[in-house]
């Protein structure tokens, strides 16, 4: 996926061979085909050729058009999977994007729409994508049958800011969203109570919103979950979530357990630390690489495999390499008990400017 995004941004043709060629179900899956259709909608003049067996893909990107469009996301993956692509591409379109995505808004595998709203959008704002950046959840739809709907709006920007965030910060408050569809409204309260037990022992300022949907707004499947985010003194966000699974067997189903799981995950995330949540590291890395021709610096927690892979792609497509410095907080120092080692990422942006944006 990362490669398709970068190919679109750099305008390079990409050929992907041997897609699951040794797998039991070889070739592209349905949800990937759906993703390609989405890419086709946001661009103009894209050619996509897939071999008969589905194991080879040739993708030749056109220009990023943007505008208003609607997309039915495959229910196999949550909307978050598709939305992540839009987050990467939307600021560089010709026209402001207004996308309506339909499908599964929350599941336990992909980042939920709530998480992206509270985590990735602030990251974008830090890079100067400000006015009119909006994400609205019209309908919720839990896995597996979905039925949710969101509206994502993004402005176009000509150039990205250069970000320099080097100081570790304190967490001043924790906010959250407990959601439930097609189940008892009591469940959201149980989620909140159990997670607060953990959260309040660390920070006094905790507030968790509840969002219980019913009727047409609640999609086709029952489900519930909790998305938590911790905000630092200058507005950086660390987040974590837990949600009911697709198959009801492999996850705790008692709301109390789920609430505790979400809270524990948030603490784990804080332990890893940094100024960018692990789920949007790749986005920050992308914007750093594409940013102003200046030195950008950001402290992150330990890098996720996804981010690492994304950075490799960044090197391949844009020739941007990052420099890594490991920062290890010293627990004996005053104010040094700040969890695991952090990584300071440094890179010089390529000065990517949005050539397709019309200048009035």
């Amino acid at each position, binding site marked *: *996926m*990362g490669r398709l995004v970068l190919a679109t941004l750099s305008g390079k043709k990409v050929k*992907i*061979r041997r*897609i*699951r*060629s*040794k*797998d*039991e179900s070889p070739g592209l*899956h349905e949800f*990937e085909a759906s993703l390609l259709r989405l890419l086709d909608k946001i661009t103009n003049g894209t050619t996509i050729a897939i071999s008969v067996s589905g194991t080879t893909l040739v993708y030749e990107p056109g220009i990023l058009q943007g505008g208003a469009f609607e997309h039915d996301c495959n229910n196999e*993956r949550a909307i978050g999977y598709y939305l*992540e692509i839009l987050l990467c591409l939307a600021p560089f379109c010709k026209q402001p994007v207004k996308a309506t995505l339909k499908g599964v808004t929350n599941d336990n595998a*992909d*980042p939920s729409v709530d*998480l992206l709203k509270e985590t990735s959008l602030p990251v974008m704002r830090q890079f100067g994508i400000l006015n009119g950046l909006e994400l609205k959840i019209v309908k919720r739809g839990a896995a597996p049958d979905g039925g949710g709907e969101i509206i994502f709006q993004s402005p176009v920007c000509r150039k990205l800011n250069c970000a320099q965030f080097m100081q570790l910060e*304190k967490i001043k408050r924790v906010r959250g969203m407990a959601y439930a569809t097609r189940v008892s409204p009591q469940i959201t309260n149980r989620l909140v109570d159990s997670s607060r*037990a*953990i959260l309040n*022992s*660390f*920070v*006094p300022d905790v507030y968790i919103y509840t969002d219980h949907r019913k009727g047409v707004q609640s999609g086709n499947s029952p489900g519930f979950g909790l998305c938590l985010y911790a905000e630092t003194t200058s507005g950086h966000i660390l987040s974590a979530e837990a949600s009911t699974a697709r198959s009801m067997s492999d996850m705790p189903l008692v709301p109390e357990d789920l609430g*505790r799981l979400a*809270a*524990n*995950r948030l*603490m*784990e*995330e*804080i*332990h890893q*630390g940094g100024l960018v949540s*692990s789920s949007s590291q*790749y986005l920050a890395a992308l914007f750093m690489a594409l940013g102003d021709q200046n030195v950008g610096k950001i402290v992150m927690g*330990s*890098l*996720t*495999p*996804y*981010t*690492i*892979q994304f950075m*490799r792609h960044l*090197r391949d497509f844009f020739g941007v*390499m990052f*420099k*890594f410095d*490991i920062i290890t907080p010293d627990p004996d*120092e*005053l*104010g*040094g*008990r*700040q*969890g*695991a*080692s952090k*990584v300071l990422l440094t890179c010089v942006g390529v000065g990517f400017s949005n050539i397709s944006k019309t200048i009035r």
Partner: protein
Amino acid sequence: AEKTFFEQQKSSTNLHRLIYGRHEDGVEVEEGTEEEEPDLAGGLFKINKKEDASRFVNNSRDCSIVSRECIHDWLNDHEARETIADCFMTGDWNKGEDAK
């Protein structure tokens, strides 16, 4: 100080090599960064090879969130709680800073 500088230098080059290197797979870094096959030809899916080994097919998703194993019980494990105490406003502050 010199020593720590060189140590730091070493560990960061290791990370650099781990991410951008082609064949230096043996390098271990104390970070949570897992060893990955640097081979990009594995297809659209970066975890292709791992998936082959484990028998769970169609799990080869490219997903930006990692479901971190929760190693600690953050409510009752006091040692773990200590390690992140200063991440919060309520913790100790560095000398230069102050709660505003």
